[in-house]
């Protein structure tokens, strides 16, 4: 039995209530993530670049976590996530520069607005199948940038918003590393939640809806409404990504979150492994490594390296890196077991 065969056969997910052991395991993954996050913070140290890499990992992870429920689980491809991230970013930027209210207000408003927009878009396309959603949200994404520009009094028009104050807590300016720790924690919390949602009844309903909407409908759950809810939840999470970005980069322009980020975010869950929400986190790390932290030999090759990397992962690790690791463990165990027997 080769690893490849293991990959194919070890697909079957573990049971929902596989007992007490699952309870322990449930905590072990987030705990490991926290440890890795702490190590990452140590690795970053005082290097602004490395700190930024962590921030960008968090940003990409949040965008793709936002896409995880609607796209990976429910199968509805929305192209509006760039707009949602922008909404989150602008909310924080506007709140901090214009109102004098604490930034957290922006963190709340942004996701709410994004969710509302997602609901409207989804209601408008509710009678349509998946591809229409993609088309309409694509058009929405294209129209969104001009709106940002046109709403100049609010958004600063084409130059965007700059000159934001660094985040403070009751006047105290926490060190950047601490803020990054909070950002990573946010990602871990959301990934944990979404991963848990995935295997719960709600998540299972959503995943069933993707393949057999008629069956879900026949059991009494309105699929159009459920789709709308998934899109709204996704939009809210993606919006957090924008808020996070602007809190560290301290400025935002209409061109910051564009369609290309949606295409990037499409890659992420598959790189990490679509079988779990943690795939988004792993995928974001790989993505940032491939785009922003390559040895200088690859400098100037940009998307090419990324795209080739994605293809290689798809070919070598069809279940994503997490899936590959799991298969590897199964394979090693089996070999080891056989050797002893």
């Amino acid at each position, binding site marked *: *039995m080769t690893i490849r*065969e293991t990959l*194919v*056969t070890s697909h079957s997910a573990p049971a929902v209530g596989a007992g007490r052991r699952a309870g322990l395991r449930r905590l072990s993954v987030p705990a490991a993530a926290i440890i890795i996050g702490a190590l990452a913070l140590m690795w970053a140290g005082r290097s602004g670049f490395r700190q930024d890499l962590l921030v960008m990992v968090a940003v990409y992870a949040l965008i793709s976590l936002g896409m995880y429920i609607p796209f990976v689980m429910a199968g509805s491809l929305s192209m509006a996530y760039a707009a949602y991230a922008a909404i989150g970013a602008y909310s924080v930027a506007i709140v901090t520069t214009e109102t004098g209210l604490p930034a957290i207000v922006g963190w709340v408003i942004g996701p709410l607005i994004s969710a509302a927009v997602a609901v409207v878009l989804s209601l408008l396309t509710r009678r349509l199948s998946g591809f229409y959603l993609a088309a309409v949200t694509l058009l929405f994404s294209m129209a969104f940038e001009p709106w940002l520009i046109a709403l100049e009094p609010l958004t600063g028009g084409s130059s965007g918003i700059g000159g934001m104050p660094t985040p403070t807590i009751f006047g105290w300016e926490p060190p950047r590393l601490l803020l990054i720790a909070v950002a990573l924690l946010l990602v871990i919390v959301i990934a944990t939640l979404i991963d848990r949602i995935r295997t719960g009844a709600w998540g299972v309903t959503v995943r069933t809806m993707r393949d057999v909407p008629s069956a879900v409908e026949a059991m009494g759950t309105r699929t159009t409404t459920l789709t709308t809810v998934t899109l709204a939840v996704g939009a809210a999470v993606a919006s957090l990504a924008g808020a996070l970005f602007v809190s560290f980069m301290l400025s935002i322009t209409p061109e910051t979150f564009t369609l290309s980020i949606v295409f990037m975010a499409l890659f992420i869950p598959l790189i990490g492994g679509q079988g779990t929400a943690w795939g988004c986190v792993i995928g974001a790390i790989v993505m940032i490594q491939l785009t922003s932290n390559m040895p200088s030999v690859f400098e100037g090759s940009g998307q090419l390296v990324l795209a080739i990397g994605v293809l290689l992962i798809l070919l070598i690790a069809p279940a994503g890196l997490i899936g590959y690791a799991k298969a590897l463990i199964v394979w090693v165990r089996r070999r080891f077991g056989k050797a002893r027997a």
Partner: protein
Amino acid sequence: MSVDLNVTDLSVRYGMATAVEKATLTVPAGRVTAVVGPNGAGKSSLALGVYGAVAATGSIQLGSTDLASLASIDRARAGLAIVPQGRQLFPKLTVRDNLQVMAELLKLKKKAVDDALDRFPALRERESRLAGVLSGGEQQMLVVSRALMGEPRCLVLDEMMTGLAPKIVSGLVDAIREIADRGASVLIVDPAIGPLQRVIDRGYVLLRAQLSTAYEDVAALDDGYQRAMGIIQHEMGVE
């Protein structure tokens, strides 16, 4: 043209699961052989393995032709036909086009399509409708009709009667008898003997991937099947 189908040591595996383990059976020409067994026993895997639609190991001989080395399309051209279980048709093609595809695959004359349509009046009436809007039974008629195109030398019928009304079933039973009488070998695969009682000549019981030895008449087969099921229930009770 009457040829026997001889299957030796046929195994079908899905990853690590074994669906059929070294099955050896004969389907003599001119006779209707059945493989019965409970759900999940591996009957469809056996049928598909014979047809070449799933990977299988072992030898499959149709007369002197070695089928195991052929791709499924070549097996079809060598005279092997299958009624697969489930809705294995092309829903967005018209009824006629569904048959046309098969005719082209087997390089048959145009008339074969018309003959196939005429096998069931319901199909003829609906020849230009999309196959996907037919009722369950009508779809089954289409699949059966498709398999009978081109006068196959060997027929593999997987749950052929499901979803068909008694009137149609009895017509089909007669048709199968006729086909067998013409010298074709017929393999029927089903979880129940039921209305097929009339047409089955001999058979095997398939239980958890293991094929029994041949039962040379229906009564013996029925008896063997019930005994096998009894064993299962007994085991379950004990467990």
